[in-house]
């Protein structure tokens, strides 16, 4: 077994390289141009040399610049994420199944198929780098202008930088050296200072960011009672904020990268904020006296003391209502039965115990994040797909999905036997 163990220590770039077969060995039909024309594989490239940090196998030479970058993984089995989701997705209609099949594990879209928020990512102001969170903020949240600055994007395929001018704005209730908004083509985007600038006390942080005003408490989980895995909503957010703003201003910032919430008794809040450019991130209050959040990109940990933490936990428990748990991301799975210019239909009959229980979902192509899959011929009628989406499905109107963001091909197996391919 020593050789087997030793091979477990081969270097990581070699493992990554082996995630896809060498180009020379792959049939060329996998590459499709934006117009649907089939192209050759393009110039061969050493994937390991061309690696980029977050998707090392996704680079391509300049001559193939018009091509979409995609990776089709070999046969895979989908783990428990979907297994859990399918329970809530099917509402009891679905038979037991496992998903297996090809998937676009990651895609670098051609520049013209990226949203503005995906294209333009960084901005330097007074020597500090601000990074686009990808979240938009409404004009009503803007305060005063900070000036016009260069906003930079990078075309991974053509290996070209793009620079545009963006008007930067201070936001209400947050200091500009932490967060600002930048006007791009289709709206105002939240840019976060990428430097590590923790406030020394919670009071200083509250002065910099009016957290009670800007942060929404979506729900919380209570790890300390017998209600594990249950979720609650507060009837009054002041249960948390009153104690923090009035009693905890002197709470010191703690520099402890090893701090962990596990094994502590805590309330864990899911929080969102339009102005901070965050969605479903965490804020913990622990019984042993800590406040922890990653709302500002980095860990923010403050020692608020056991008394304040206990008061918050008691208040929240007394002023909350249990809610039904929701999956982290919404998804539908089924067969594409029709594609038009404005939408495509996904029918989940194949998943149902009783075929009469099948539902057809209408996925609107009003968003580039989903329409590009159709435009690039990555999905077509007859394909079995998984579609992720945000927001609510409109069950009253054709089960319409208005904010689909991602699609991938899947295959369903029933036990060990394929029932659809």
């Amino acid at each position: 077994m020593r050789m087997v163990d030793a091979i477990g220590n081969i270097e990581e770039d070699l493992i990554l390289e082996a995630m896809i077969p060498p180009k020379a060995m792959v049939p060329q039909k996998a590459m499709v141009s934006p117009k649907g024309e089939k192209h050759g594989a393009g110039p061969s490239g050493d994937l390991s040399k061309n690696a980029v940090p977050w998707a090392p196998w996704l680079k391509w030479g300049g001559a193939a610049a018009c091509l979409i970058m995609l990776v089709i993984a070999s046969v895979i089995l989908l783990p428990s994420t979907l297994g859990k989701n399918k329970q809530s997705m099917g509402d009891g209609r679905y038979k037991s199944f496992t998903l297996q099949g090809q998937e676009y594990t990651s895609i670098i879209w051609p520049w013209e198929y990226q949203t503005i928020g995906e294209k333009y990512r960084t901005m330097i102001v007074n020597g500090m780098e601000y990074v686009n969170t990808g979240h938009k903020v409404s004009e009503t949240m803007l305060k005063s202008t900070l000036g016009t600055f260069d906003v930079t994007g990078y075309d991974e395929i053509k290996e070209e930088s793009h620079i545009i001018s963006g008007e930067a704005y201070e936001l209400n209730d947050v200091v500009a050296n932490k967060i600002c908004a930048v006007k791009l083509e289709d709206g105002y985007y939240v840019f976060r200072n990428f430097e590590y600038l923790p406030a020394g006390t919670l009071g200083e942080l509250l002065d910099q960011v009016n957290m009670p005003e800007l942060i929404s408490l979506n729900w919380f989980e209570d790890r300390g009672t017998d209600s594990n895995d249950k979720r609650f909503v507060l009837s009054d957010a002041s249960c948390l904020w009153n104690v923090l703003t009035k009693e905890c201003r002197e709470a010191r910032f703690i520099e402890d990268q090893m701090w962990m919430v596990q094994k502590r008794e805590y309330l864990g809040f899911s929080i969102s904020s339009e102005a901070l450019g965050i969605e479903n991130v965490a804020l913990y209050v622990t019984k042993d006296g800590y406040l922890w959040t990653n709302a500002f990109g980095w860990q923010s940990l403050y020692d608020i003391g056991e008394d304040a933490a206990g008061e918050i936990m008691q208040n929240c428990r007394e002023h909350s209502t249990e809610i039904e748990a929701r999956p982290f991301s919404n998804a539908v799975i089924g067969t594409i039965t029709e594609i038009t210019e404005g939408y495509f239909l996904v029918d989940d009959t194949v998943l149902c115990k009783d075929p009469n229980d099948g539902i057809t979902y209408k996925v609107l192509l009003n968003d580039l994040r989903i329409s590009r899959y159709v435009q690039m011929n990555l999905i077509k009628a007859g394909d079995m797909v998984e579609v992720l989406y945000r927001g609510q499905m409109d069950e009253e109107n054709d089960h319409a999905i208005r904010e689909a963001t991602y699609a991938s091909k899947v295959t369903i197996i029933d036990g060990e036997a394929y029932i659809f391919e």
Partner: protein
Amino acid sequence: MEETQIIDLYFVRDEQAIKETQAQYGRQMYATAYHILNNHEDSEECVNDAYAGLWNAIPPTRPGSLLAFACKITRNLSLKRFQYLTRKKRLAAVTTSFDELEAVLPDERFVPGASDEDIGKLISQFLRNQKEEVRYIFIRKYFFFDPIKEIAENCSITESKVKNLLFHARKELKEYLRKEGVAI
């Protein structure tokens, strides 16, 4: 979410890191475990253990590639579980790979003091000097334990061609390790 951002989540001890890892790499991790264990429940359990392993390892480790690091942890845990499970029975596909590697350098032929990490580096160096397709096939077979048939299909070559390439790669590796002083 980009990989570096997920790693940052581990560093700030945000449990969202595990959810993001699961969403992006859970499938590859599962496939890695499944090729070794060939059993859904055992594979799922190993992948869950691998998430805990990632949580405990990052920080202080900051992997160059989270995907490769996650697959490494999954592989190690799956092999341990495989050894436990195969006290009673042997699973043909994986034990064949073990036997082939054992033939390259039997356990008792390792020089004293040669660590698995050092030998891993030597094997990496050896693979870098191989053609890209040989490197791919070798790693798919002996790191991920993919079946020969699957490798052949992915590469659009015959199974016998895969076996032939593996045979020559093992032979060369054996000679390389001997020259590097790893084998007695």
